[in-house]
Every structure is written in C-alpha cells, then in structure tokens.
C-alpha cells in the first residue's frame, strides 16, 4: 500500500470519535436491556468498532451502505442520528422506520443507509444493485456491503461477488471476521484459510487486514473505495476482529474460547486508539474526555427521548405495505 494513504491525525481523531460513539452506544444498549427498560433482540458489536469507524472515513453521506442485524456500529459510523436510532429500536413513533423495522432492519436513506438485513448473506446482492445504480448514474457513489465471516459460506456471497466482478461494480465487500458465526468457529464452518483468499474466485483484489487497527483498516478501505469510485470494480476486505459478547444478548457464550476472549478484551481496540491519540499528540486527555462526555449526553438524550415517545397506533400495522400506483 502506498504510504501517502494516511490516515493523518485529524482522520485518526475522526475514527476515534466514531469508535467512541459506537462503544458507548453498545454499552448503553446492553445496560438498557439489562435494566429491563427495553426488550429487543440485540446483537452486540462490541470489539468491532474500529472497522466501520475507519471505513466510513472514506465514505460520504451519498455513498450507500447495506448492513446486517449486527450492524448498528456500521450505521452509527455512517451517520444514523441517535434519536432516530433509539426511537426505532424502542419500537416507537419517531423511529427511523416508525418502529416497524426494529434493530434488525434500520434504514436511513438520508445518510445512505439503505437496507439492514437479518438474513445472512443478503447484504451483498442488494449492495450490487445500489452500485449498479451508481454506475448507471455516473454519480461516483460507492456501495458498501458489510457481513460476517459465517456469511462468506452462503450462496449469496458467491453470486454477489461474481456479479460485481463481471459487471465491474463500484462496491466494497467488508467481511467483519469475528471468528464466530453464532456458536460456530470460523475453522469449523469455513474451508478457506482466509476469507480474503476467496477473491481469487472473482479475480478481484482481496485483502485481510487487522480490522482493529485503525491505520490498516483505513488504508484498505480507502484503497477499495478509491478503486470503486474510479470505476475499477469491487474489492473484498476481510477485517479481522473479535466479538466481545455472545452472538445475541442473553447468549451465555459458553462455546467461546475463554483465553481467546480474554486476550481480545485485553486488547480492546477503542481504548488502544485513545491511548495512541494521546501518545502521538493528536488529542489530549481533556479533549477526548470532552468528546466522550458529549457522546454520553447525546446518547442519554436519545434514550430518554425514545422511551418517552409513544408506541405506534394500530393504524400503522397496515400502512406501508403498498404505495399508491401513479
């Protein structure tokens, strides 16, 4: 990779800003569930914050994102407003989907968050379509599909990457390899030594990076996004990471390797980046603390606003099934 890819200090700080928001939001989500204030299926992304935080440094609001049930970090990094998010996961009017989508189907087109899917593998074929639209319009937009390591074993992955390659679509496939698909380890489910190796099947660049390293992740994303924007076609990025909690909230995670998990938690990438910013003089403690306080306040406000919002009335049950024919 060329050395002038960055990131510079401002960019690194921007990545931290996002990562701190993501981390705080995950912690708050689990707390709000634990304390019984909210009930929802919640897929914690704790530990994976750096990936979308670094990725989104190369994306604009016009670029498209398709993400998955474990994707609130991706959305927040892409700019989903906290109020719309929290009202939605609380199932309230004022939620970005009026409470009808919920945590697995958050959508926010204003920031390019086009689809969130609960079906493993489905983000990729749809991202291709967004990229096709961009290619046709010539508007320079890029589509990003994020997905897990387990999803790289399902048919939709294969079909989507092949189509993206033969159509040379401006799309970036970001596999967040957290080493588990539900309770099953990467090795037990995936024959490829690396997910990135699968790029050979599509004759596209495939790169495995440490997704917890903001520099590696930023550079790989930037290169892939630049390629896509330049009309050079898709890239597969395998971002290595680790999921600090069970698959879904409430899952006892007995199937996870204790030592592996302890090591991952000890190497928590968010405080690591924080320390680095200070060590490199990019930001000082006071500035970071202020940023974090701002984040906490914003989350506070969003949570309280959401929980104070009314549930949708029954009329909502049967609206938005069909539009009006012209």
């Amino acid at each position, binding site marked *: 990779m060329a050395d002038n890819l960055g990131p510079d200090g401002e960019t690194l700080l921007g990545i931290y800003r996002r990562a701190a928001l993501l981390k705080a939001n995950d912690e708050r989500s689990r707390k709000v569930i634990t304390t019984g204030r909210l009930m929802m299926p919640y897929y914690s992304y704790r530990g994976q914050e750096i990936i979308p935080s670094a990725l989104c440094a190369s994306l604009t609001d016009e670029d*498209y994102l*398709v993400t998955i049930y474990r994707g609130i970090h991706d959305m927040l990094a892409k700019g989903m407003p906290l109020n719309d998010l929290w009202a939605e996961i609380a199932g309230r009017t004022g*939620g*970005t*989907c*009026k*409470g*009808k*989508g919920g945590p697995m*189907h958050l*959508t*926010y*087109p204003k920031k390019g968050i*086009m*689809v969130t*899917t609960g*079906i493993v593998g*489905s983000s*990729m*074929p*749809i*991202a*291709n*379509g*967004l*990229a*096709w*639209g*961009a*290619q*046709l*319009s010539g508007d320079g937009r890029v*589509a990003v599909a994020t997905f897990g390591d387990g999803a790289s074993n399902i*048919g*939709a992955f294969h*079909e*989507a990457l*092949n*189509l993206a390659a*033969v*159509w040379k679509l401006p799309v970036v496939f970001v596999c967040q390899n957290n080493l588990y698909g539900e309770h099953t380890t990467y090795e037990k489910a995936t024959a490829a030594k690396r997910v990135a190796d699968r790029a050979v099947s599509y004759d596209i660049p495939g790169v495995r990076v440490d997704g917890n390293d903001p520099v590696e992740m930023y550079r790989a994303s930037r290169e892939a996004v630049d390629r896509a924007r330049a009309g050079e076609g898709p890239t597969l990025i395998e971002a290595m990471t680790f999921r600090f909690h069970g698959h879904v909230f409430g899952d006892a995670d007995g199937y996870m390797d204790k030592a592996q998990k302890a090591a991952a938690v000890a190497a928590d990438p968010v405080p690591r980046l924080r320390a680095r910013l200070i060590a490199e003089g990019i930001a000082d403690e006071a500035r970071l603390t202020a940023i974090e306080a701002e984040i906490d306040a914003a989350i506070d406000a969003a949570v309280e606003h959401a929980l104070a919002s009314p549930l949708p009335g029954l009329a909502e049950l049967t*609206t*938005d*099934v*069909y*539009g*009006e*024919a*012209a």
Partner: protein
Amino acid sequence: MSEAMMDTRPAAVKPKQATILEAINAALADAMADDDTVLVLGEDVADPEEGGVVGVTKGLSTRFGDKRVRSTPIAEQAIIGAAIGASLVGYKPVAEIMLMNFTTVAMDMIVNHAAKLRYMSGGQTHVPIVIRTMTGTGMSSGGQHSDYLEAWFAHTAGMKVVAPSNPADAYGLMRAAIDDPDPVLFIENLPNYWLKGDAAEAGHVVPLGKARIAQDGRDITIVSYSRTLTETLSALKAIEQAGISAEIIDLRTLSPWDEDTVLASVAKTGRLLVAHEAVEKHGLGAEIAAVASNRLFGKLKAPVARLGAPYTPVPFSKSLEDAYAPNAKRIAETVIAICKQQD
C-alpha cells in the same frame, strides 16, 4: 399471417395483431423509450445472447444499450438483489427469472427483501421492480420446469402478481407493472407466447387489480387466468351446447385479485368455478372459493368448485402431462356437472 392478409375489413377498423411474446417485447421497449430509468436484466436477455431464450427481450440491448439491458450470470439471488438495489435508488428494473421453478433459488430476495423493504423501512424505501418469469405444462419439460407457484407470492404481503392471457393485456399489464411502485411478479405462459390477438396501442395500460369479463353469462361464473383462461374460452362451445350460459372472468391480476368483479358476477350467476393450472390444493382457487363462499353464504345455487392440477409434481410423459392441467374438456365437464347438480 395468411389469415390476416385475407381479412377484408379496412385497416383502420381491424386492430394490428400481435403474439403475447411480441406484446411483452413491445411493452418493454416502449417503457424503456418513455422512461430512462427502466432497466432489464436476467440470463441471456441482451442481444449478443439472442435477447432471451425465447426472444422476449430481443432488440432491447441493441436499442437501449448494454448498460440498461444486461445479461447476467446464472445467479438468481444476484439478479433479484441487483434489481432491488437499483430500484432503491431510482431505477425500475425488470428482472427475468427464466422459469418459475427457479424462483426457488431467489425466494429470500423476493420474499424477505423485495416484498418487505417498504414496510420494514416504515415507507422510507420501496422496491419498484418487475420479476418476469415463464412457466406452464405442455412442453414436456417435466417436474422442475413447469410449476405454477403464484399462490406462494399471493400469500406474501408487499408483492403483486400478474398473469396475462392475451397480447393486449400482456402489454397493458406490463406497462402498469413497470410503473407500479412495488414489486410485481409477472407470470408468462410458455406455450401461449405464440398466441395471437389484437395488439395494444402504444401506451395502453391495464390497471393492476382489475379483472376482465371475457364473456358475459347468467348461469355460472368461471374465474381463470393465464393459459387456463384460454382453455376456458375453448370450453365455451361445449358449455353453450349444454344450454349453459357461462360468465368468464379473466383475473389478470392474481394479487390483489378483483373481489368486486368476481363477487358481483357470482352474486348474479349463483355458481362459481375457479380453474387454474397450479396444484388445486392450497392454490389460488382456495382463497377465492373461501371468500366467495363466505361472502355469498346462503345466496349460492351450488357449492363453489375448483379445478386445478392434481396433488403431484408435473409428470414428463405426454400421456400424463396432458392429463395434468385442466383443459377445455375437463372445464366443460365440470361446469356442466355443477350446473346440473341443482337441476
């Protein structure tokens, strides 16, 4: 062709003739000409690949370019996914799933995504795509290439389902489907592609959800669609010879189906037969029969009857395939039996 040449009526009076295949091709071409956002994708749909295995999309890529008309790999999930994605950002893709049985490999994209994104996004997005697919017995294609699966999609909220039986409707329904803001499954019958009829005028639109009364009658209502409607029309002579006046309704849009037209007709005739090529059990006829029996309770002269395929896969052998889908003879016999019940 020679028949048309022998017609002696003045050209202005006699509408141009077209096959269903030509009608669909014309509808696609006219829609693409009228609206730059209309796209076509699917296996072999572009002209280097001969405009589709049957030629339905012939000429489109030559005329509108290979960016708007794209042949795809054999990858139905990728096809529908690409259509969905493009539709979310302002395009109106018409995706071909070559045969209806191949929708089985794209059901997630169709049912969990295309049909649901409007609802799950609270109306922020919607999926104005058309999924064209062909099917039908009569080509000796056997168990995996002939099924009518419309009941699955009619059971899926968020979609519409259309199945024309003549060229003018094929044109008009395709134009309506392309402009509809939601996903529409457009079912084409393979043996009927070459059926001729009056061609539609350019721009002709048949609104979705409206049935067509193909024949007025008094004694019984026959609801049908697609190729079975053709069979029903062929049964008419035998039915009339038995002294029965049948009202024939071409459903055209299978979901949402036109309850008003059907119920008004049955209220008048007092009898109903629903005939389709799909397996009878749990087929579209079940819903129509359930609704008609419920809504016209006490007002019917005979129990609502259904005629569909037996509860079996489609057999290959000609002798069995011929006996599989309801044909004119069985439709006529059934109608006569229903009307005789009360005599």
